[in-house]
C-alpha cells in the first residue's frame, strides 16, 4: 500500500511531467515516481513512431510540392499516429518533451503545403529521434529541414555578392537568422546585434529546398523534389562573424556556426528558462533555472542530462500545481484516465475540441509557438469552452465503451490524495455518470499541474 506522500509524488510525475495516469492510476509508479520518470529518459525508443504508412523524408518532401489533398492526408495520418502513442505511452514524460521541442521550433502548416506535408516527418525524425541527444544536432537538423526553411523564408535568401546575387540583384532574407537567435538559441537580450543577425543570414544564404516549379522547369532532377538543397552560387562568400565566432567559408560553415550558437551560455539559460516555465512555474527564478542551464552547459547541450536536471530539482516535487494543463494535455489525460483510445472514426471530435480551444497542432501562426503562460489558457472563453468540450468528449468516450470504474473510484485512482473534499463529495453525489466524470476532468485537481 503506497503512502500518501508516495501517491502525491506519483501525481506530480504524471501531471506535471507526464500526460496523466492510465487506468491503473497513480499506484502504477508510486514505488518510485522520480525513478519512473528518469527511466523514461533511458528509453528514448519509446518516443519513436514507426508506422509504415507514414512518409519518409524524401516522400514527405515530394508531397510538399503536390496539392492540398495529398498534404492534408499525410498531416491527418501523422496526427493519428502521434495521438495513438500519446495515449499508450506509460507516463508521457517523453511525449511532453516532444511537445515542448516541437513548440520550441514551432511551424504553422497554414503557411505552405510544404510544411503541412513535412511537419509530421520533421517531428518524427528530428524531434523524436533527437529527444535525448544533443541540442546542436536537433538545431542543425531543424535549420536544414525544408519545412523550417520554408516557414522562415530562407528558400530564396541569396547573398548579394554571390554569383546569383550579382546576376539577379537578389538579396538576403533575415527571417530565419533572426528567429534562430531570438527564439531557437540565445534568446532576446542574448547579446547579439543587428550585425550578428545580418551575418547569420549570410551564413544561411543558399540553404534552400527544391520547389516544385524548379523540377517542373527542369532546373532540378525529379528525385530532389521538396528536398533540402544548398546552392553554392547563392551563398554569400567570405567569413562572417556571429557572436564572436567566424568559421571558415566551406561546407562546414553552417554546422559549425550552429554548434557555436547551440552551446553558448545564453542558449543554455534560454532553454533552461523555457523548460522551467513550461513544466514548473510561470515565474522561474535563478534557483530553478541555473541548475538546469548548468547541466545543459556541462554536458555540451545533452538534452537527456538537461531533462534529468529539471526532474532532479527539489522544487519540481514541491512547488504548488499552479500551471494549467493545455487543451492537448487535458484531452489526452482524459482518454488515458478512462482507458480509451481515440480511434480514427472519432478523430474529428478531437480536432473540434482542439480547434475550439485554440490548440490544434501546428496551427499557431507565428514562430514563437503556443504561449506557455497560464493566463493564456486559463481565460474566460477557455474555461467556458473547456466545460462544454469536455462534456462532449466524455460522452463520446463513454459511448465507445463502458467505463470500467464508477466516477468516484476513477477519481480516487487518478487524483488520489490530491482530491479535495468538495470535489469528492460532488463526484460521489452526482447520479448522472456523464456529469460526474465531467466534474472529475474539469476539477482544479485534474486541470492544474
Amino acid at each position, binding site marked *: 500500500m503506497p503512502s500518501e506522500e508516495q501517491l502525491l509524488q506519483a501525481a506530480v510525475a504524471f501531471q506535471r511531467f507526464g500526460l496523466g495516469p492510465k487506468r491503473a492510476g497513480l499506484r502504477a509508479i508510486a514505488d518510485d515516481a522520480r525513478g519512473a520518470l528518469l527511466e523514461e529518459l533511458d528509453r528514448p525508443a519509446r518516443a519513436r513512431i514507426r508506422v509504415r504508412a507514414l512518409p519518409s523524408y524524401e516522400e514527405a518532401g515530394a508531397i510538399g510540392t503536390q496539392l492540398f489533398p495529398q498534404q492534408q492526408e499525410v498531416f491527418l495520418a501523422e496526427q493519428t499516429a502521434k495521438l495513438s502513442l500519446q495515449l499508450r505511452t506509460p507516463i508521457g514524460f517523453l511525449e511532453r518533451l516532444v511537445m515542448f521541442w516541437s513548440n520550441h521550433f514551432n511551424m504553422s502548416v497554414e503557411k505552405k503545403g510544404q510544411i503541412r506535408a513535412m511537419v509530421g516527418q520533421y517531428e518524427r525524425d528530428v524531434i523524436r529521434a533527437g529527444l535525448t541527444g544533443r541540442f546542436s544536432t536537433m538545431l542543425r537538423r531543424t535549420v536544414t529541414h525544408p519545412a523550417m526553411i520554408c516557414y522562415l523564408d530562407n528558400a530564396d535568401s541569396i547573398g548579394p555578392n554571390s554569383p546569383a546575387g550579382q546576376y539577379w540583384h537578389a538579396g538576403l532574407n533575415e527571417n530565419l537568422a533572426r528567429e534562430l537567435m531570438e527564439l531557437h538559441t540565445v534568446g532576446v537580450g542574448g547579446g547579439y546585434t543587428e550585425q550578428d543577425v545580418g551575418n547569420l543570414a549570410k551564413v544561411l544564404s543558399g540553404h534552400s529546398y527544391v520547389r516544385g516549379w524548379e523540377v517542373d522547369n527542369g532546373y532540378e532532377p525529379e528525385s530532389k523534389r521538396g528536398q533540402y538543397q544548398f546552392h553554392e552560387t547563392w551563398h554569400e562568400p567570405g567569413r562572417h562573424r556571429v557572436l564572436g565566432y567566424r568559421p571558415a567559408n566551406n561546407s562546414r560553415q553552417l554546422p559549425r556556426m550552429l554548434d557555436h550558437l547551440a552551446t553558448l551560455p545564453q542558449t543554455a539559460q534560454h532553454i533552461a528558462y523555457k523548460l522551467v516555465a513550461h513544466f514548473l512555474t510561470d515565474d522561474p527564478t535563478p534557483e530553478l533555472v541555473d541548475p538546469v542551464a548548468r547541466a545543459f552547459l556541462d554536458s555540451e547541450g545533452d538534452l537527456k542530462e538537461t531533462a534529468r536536471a529539471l526532474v532532479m530539482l527539489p522544487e519540481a516535487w514541491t512547488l504548488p500545481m499552479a500551471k494549467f494543463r493545455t487543451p492537448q494535455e487535458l484531452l489526452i489525460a482524459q482518454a488515458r484516465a478512462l482507458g480509451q483510445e481515440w480511434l480514427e472514426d472519432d478523430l474529428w471530435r478531437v480536432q473540434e475540441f482542439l480547434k475550439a480551444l485554440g490548440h490544434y497542432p501546428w496551427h499557431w501562426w507565428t514562430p514563437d509557438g503556443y504561449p506557455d503562460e497560464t493566463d493564456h489558457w486559463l481565460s*474566460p*472563453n477557455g474555461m467556458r469552452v473547456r466545460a462544454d468540450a469536455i462534456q462532449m468528449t466524455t460522452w463520446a468516450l463513454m459511448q465507445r465503451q463502458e467505463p470500467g470504474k464508477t466516477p468516484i473510484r476513477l477519481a480516487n485512482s487518478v487524483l488520489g490524495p490530491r482530491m479535495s473534499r468538495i470535489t469528492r463529495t460532488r463526484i460521489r453525489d452526482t447520479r448522472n455518470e456523464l456529469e460526474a466524470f465531467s466534474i472529475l476532468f474539469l476539477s482544479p485537481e485534474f486541470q492544474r499541474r
Partner: protein
Amino acid sequence: MTRSLSSPVDTTCSEGRLLMDRRQMLGMTAGLFSTAFMPNLARANTLGEARLLVVVLRGGLDGLSMLVPSFDPDYERVRRDLALPVEATLDLSGGFRLHPAMPNLHALYQAGQAAFVPSVGLPLQVRSHFECQENLENGLAGNDRGASGWINRLLSVMPRGEAIRDGRILALQSNPLIVRGSEPVLNWSSTWFTRAFDGLVTNLSDIYAARDRVMAENFALGREIDIRAGGQGAEEDPSLGSLVNGFLGAGRLLCSVGGPRVAVLSVDGWDTHAYQGALTGTLPTQLGALDQALQAFRGAMGAQWENTVVVCATEFGRTAVSNGTHGTDHGVGMPVLMVGGAVQGGIHGDWPGLSEAGLIDGHDLRPVMDIRSVFKGVLSTHLGVEPDLLAQTVFPDSAAIAPLEGLVVTPDAAAARAARRAVAAMQSPRAMSPFEQYRQRNGVLAG
C-alpha cells in the same frame, strides 16, 4: 460582488431584455462581466454609442465576383469564364453591380447603408497569405514584424473611462494578431458543443469557488459572455452554422450594457484557386453566407445598428484574369466593404480599370489607395480619433496616408437621413412581400 437584477437594461438592443429575462430565469447572478464593465456607465459619453466591427475575410476575396464592374469595357475579356451576365446581377450605382447571392447587402446599399471602396492595396504587396494577413493586422508601413495589432493600439489611444475603451476589445472565434497587444481582449467563440448541463455548471462553480478563485472568476465571466452572446440553450441554433452564430453573438455582445464596442471576427474560406463558380458554386455560396451573416448581425444590433460601422477587409485581391482552373490566384487590388447605419453608402474612390494598361502586369487590379486610408477614414470620423494618434500609434509612419473622407455619416447627415427614413416609412408602412423581394432579386420578366 453581484449586481441587482433590476439594474437598467439596454432596451435599445433587441436582445437586451431577452437576455436579462433568461438570466433571471436561470437564477444567475450578473457576476464579473457587469462589475467589470458597469462602473463607467454613468460618465459622460463623448463618443456616443459608436460601435465598430472589423471582419477579416481570410484567404483573399475575389472582389470582382462581389462588386461587379459591368460598365468596364474589358470586363468580359478579362473575366472570361467567370464573367457574370449583367442581367443576373443587382444594380448598385455608377455602373457597378452586385453578385446576386447578396440580396440583403443590395437592400442595405439601396438604403444608403452599404459602401464599397473598389480597389485598395496593402502597404506590403506580396502574394503570401501569411505575410499579407500579418501586414493587414499589424497596420505597419511595410514588411516590419509587429507584435501588436492595430485594433489593440486603437483602443490604447481611446480615453480611459469611455465605454469604448473600458468595454475592451471583443475577439470572436479566435484571437488574431489584429487584436493582440497591451489592451485586454475578451474572447467569445461560437461552438456547436452542447453547453455544459446546469448540474455540471453548478457543481463546477461551487468547486472552483471553494478551491480555485482564478478558475472560478474566469469560468463565471466566460459563461456570462456566452450567455450574453446567446450561446446558452436554444439561442445558438446549430442549424444556422458557426458563421451566422458568430455574427449573431458579435451583435448581441456589442449591444449588451457595458459590453465591448469594438469587435473583430474572421471569416475563412476565400482562397478560390479552382472552380470558384460564377453565378453558383463555391464562391457564390460563400458570398451568400456572408450576406446572411451580415443580415443576422444587423438584426442582433437592433437600434444600435444606427451607430455601427462594419468594415470587411481581406489580405489581398485575386488576379482579375481568371486562371486555367476556373479560379483566381493571389493578386493585388482588393475591395473594402462597409455596412452599417453609420456608413455613408455608395462607391468611394476611383476605379483603376481592367484595360491592359490599367492592370498591373496585365492581370492584377491596380490599387488606387492604401487600405489604411480607409481604416483611418472610418476611425477619424466614426470614433473621433485624432490624426496624430492615427498617424503615429494606430498606423505608425502613416502621416502621408490621408484618411479617406466621407465614409461615415456625420451626426447632421444621420439626423437628416433618419428624418427622410421616417417620411419614407410613413409613405410605405408595410414590409416588402416575398414576391417583391423575389422581383427585386430577379427583375421583371420580360414580355
